[in-house]
């Protein structure tokens, strides 16, 4: 199996927010639909150890080829279970037509997803939560990434995945939004980076 598809790198360089009105959700993309996969519906029961009342249960970022780029879990699950869920969800979402809506019922949760260029952003929320607002949360996260990296693309997230996590942690804690100001969130990250850089410079130690 080839790991990099022809044209994948070019796609990974595509700006996530390119050609889309900054500051608002992009409209429906009209592109060729993703390849249809058959879905083996694993019959695993509702995640055993779910914390009730969570706004967002987990967030996944994955590419059009189904490669995981980021995973953030706000519920406690064994690693094996997580892998199984990721596989299942990636298949469900990649098999959906581009023209369909952004919501899928999945077990007793709801998946809210949005594609930005080559990257899918997917959140699992509870049934009574506001799906439309979750789309805004996803969009805000993309905006934060964009502001931090400057014209963010998938490659930025691949090579700086830890930064993507840091940004997410400044935006969401325990499945709830902690900061509604773009400026504050990015500033916190930049200040932390400064702290990191300064220490490293002074100590003259290698960075990772």
């Amino acid at each position: 199996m080839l790991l990099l598809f022809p044209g994948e790198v070019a796609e990974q360089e595509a700006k996530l927010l390119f050609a889309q009105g900054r500051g608002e959700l992009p409209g429906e993309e009209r592109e060729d639909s993703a390849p249809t996969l058959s879905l083996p519906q694993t019959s695993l029961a509702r995640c055993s150890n779910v914390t009730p009342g969570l706004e967002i249960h987990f967030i996944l970022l994955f590419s059009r080829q189904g490669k995981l780029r980021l995973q953030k879990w706000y519920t406690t699950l064994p690693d094996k279970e997580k892998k199984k869920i990721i596989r299942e969800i990636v298949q469900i979402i990649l098999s959906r037509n581009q023209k369909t809506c952004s919501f899928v019922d999945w077990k007793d949760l709801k998946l809210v997803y949005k594609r930005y260029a080559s990257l899918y952003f997917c959140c699992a929320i509870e049934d009574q939560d506001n799906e439309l607002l979750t789309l805004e949360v996803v969009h805000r996260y993309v905006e934060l990434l964009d502001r931090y990296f400057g014209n963010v693309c998938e490659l930025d997230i691949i090579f700086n995945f830890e930064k993507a996590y840091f940004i997410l942690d400044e935006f969401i804690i325990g499945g709830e939004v902690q900061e509604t100001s773009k400026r504050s969130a990015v500033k916190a990250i930049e200040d932390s980076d400064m702290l990191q850089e300064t220490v490293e410079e002074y100590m003259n130690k290698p960075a990772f």
Partner: protein
Amino acid sequence: MPAPIRLRELIRTIRTARTQAEEREMIQKECAAIRSSFREEDNTYRCRNVAKLLYMHMLGYPAHFGQLECLKLIASQKFTDKRIGYLGAMLLLDERQDVHLLMTNCIKNDLNHSTQYVQGLALCTLGCMGSSEMCRDLAGEVEKLLKTSNSYLRKKAALCAVHVIRKVPELMEMFLPATKNLLNEKNHGVLHTSVVLLTEMCERSPDMLAHFRKVRQLSSSQLVPQLVRILKNLIMSGYSPEHDVSGISDPFLQVRILRLLRILGRNDDDSSEAMNDILAQVATNTETSKNVGNAILYETVLTIMDIKSESGLRVLAINILGRFLLNNDKNIRYVALTSLLKTVQTDHNAVQRHRSTIVDCLKDLDVSIKRRAMELSFALVNGNNVRGMMKELLYFLDSCEPEFKADCASGIFLAAEKYAPSKRWHIDTIMRVLTTAGSYVRDDAVPNLIQLITNSVEMHAYTVQRLYKAILGDYSQQPLVQVASWCIGEYGDLLVSGQCEEEEPIQVTEDEVLDILESVLISNMSASVTRGYALTAIMKLSTRFTCTVNRIKKVVSIYGSSIDVELQQRAVEYNALFKKYDHMRPALLERMPVMEKITTNGPTEIVQTNGETEPAVLETKPPPSGLQPASQANDLLDLLGGSDITPVIPTAPTSKPASAGGELLDLLGDLNLTGSPVSAPAPQIAQPPFLLDGLSSQPLFNDIAAGIPSITAYNKNGLKIDFAFERSNTNPSVTVITIQASNSTELDMTDFVFQAAVPKTFQLQLLSPSSSVIPAFNSGTITQVIKVLNPQKQQLRMRIKLTYNHKGSAMQDLAEVNNFPPQSWQ
């Protein structure tokens, strides 16, 4: 040892791998290097190694051996180490890991660190993955940080508190004092997280909810007015670039406030009253050209529908959803369907207005929208629109994806049962479901339909003809074939006679009918159960058809050697019926009686065993406790068709001495009791004292009524029950009936229980029977005495219920006795 390669370098290298195997090899090599570095306790490169490990973990490779290294990084003094350490802890550890406990101390130290970003890391980690032990240990620190003036820490502490409460609800009260001033904050991050915290407390504890609703109403910091004020400022304020999303000021905060208002206003008039105005304002002033505006509007609608809002406001909310339903954006349509489903119970008529749009959504290509539309469509079915809605839903059932069929089919069954305008429509609908989605229906659909068909006597000819046509040449839908086989067996004579009024009658010969059933028997698509249905059907036809009995005999004898044990047993039994008991065959294969629908919670007592030939063979299981006995007694009462009936507890034969006559007195003195337990152990009386008024110690039976002729009250399946009458000479209003039960079959009937019920104007007493076994071949009888008090000298009527075991199966039958001779009651 050379310096390990940098993280970016590793990522680049791994990306050059052309195959999965190549990638695996690279990773294994790198992992080996990382492991040996860990072993050497290398502090310089630990951070780099853990970061690389995290990348491999994301690719799906095992990284658990880095867990302890994460802890070491957290304990390090360097910020870079801490940052990667906490990130690794959140990714690699889950709360069941033992290393977790080691982390608590590190987090505790960092929560008191002098740098806010270190404190922030600790708070974030605790808020994302803290176990309940950790939460207990660190709740005090969190509470302290919740009161700090540093908004960066305060907002994180608030969400940490939310996590602590979710993990350990009893710690909730601890955070109550700190919530006092949270809403006076200007910083939106703190405001937002505070509202989340307050929501969590209100949702989790009714006490907290009451506290925030009421207690504060005296103070200046009432919760609802405070929230209303913040919301008002948000929608009235001008453009603030920091919190603006498409021209809307901080939608995240607005939505959270609306949600908290919903919880506060639910079932509370005062709070609801206080928020009516602002909800109307939000509902009318929100710009809806963008998704974000609709997000707020959607939340507003949910709040309006959930609290005790004014009726005008509710109309406004439903209209917003109506507009959503027509929106071009699929997401908005989905949300509209979801929320209409939530409101359909309370505002049924308002939702009903959007019916046609909703039904249109059934044709959408998107499964998410289809599912919501299907659920909503079923919720909208009622007596007035059932025909139209069902047409749409049947069409949907035809064309929908397999994942919907089972739900859709059972939805149709339920709605059809509830709102069927006619029996014919009902039968047609179920048949249609069976033909289109037969393999998806639940198992109980078959007996339910059979019961429905038997009970619609006038529809028998029509139904059997329709079913015959439906399975002609197609045996793939098993439930349909089962119902059809059963009906053909039962009503084969009607099919052949072609006397169908509803439809163009078809001309079928007996042989053609048998052809079909035989094809079902040999078709490889037929399940074993289906074959059983078909064989029994063929057997039944032996009494309904005239000129094909020999053919039937042949078929039955062929299956006497079937490898299917169930089928073989049936065939052998039927064969024996032909050979040894041919005289009983017509009686045994008689048409099934109309089945009573039992409406208790208990299992419906429909013959589940695929068309048994004997009436009402019950499975020999102990009656479930609870409602069952009472309902049986009530069944008996129902039989007399009125509420003016007194049930009587039968007395079972027993050697146990009578406990007291008083019990029986109570029994008779309390004759208004309805539905006394029947199968429960009845009061036992061996030697009945005579209890009827003025009768005690006086000779009861006197042959003055010698002239009253006996009657045969019951004669079925070899069980015969005769009634002999005597009139008491002391009290002429008492009739004494002696029953004699005899058994003409070749096997004993055991556990025989005779029960009787009379209209309320009578009083009835059943004495103990002489035995509970009726010996075979009429070689003995059971006698039992019934005394009926008939003060008004009305015509006697009686319902009787017989239960006994025969040939290993529990039998039960009911009968009405109306042919009492006039002398017995006049």
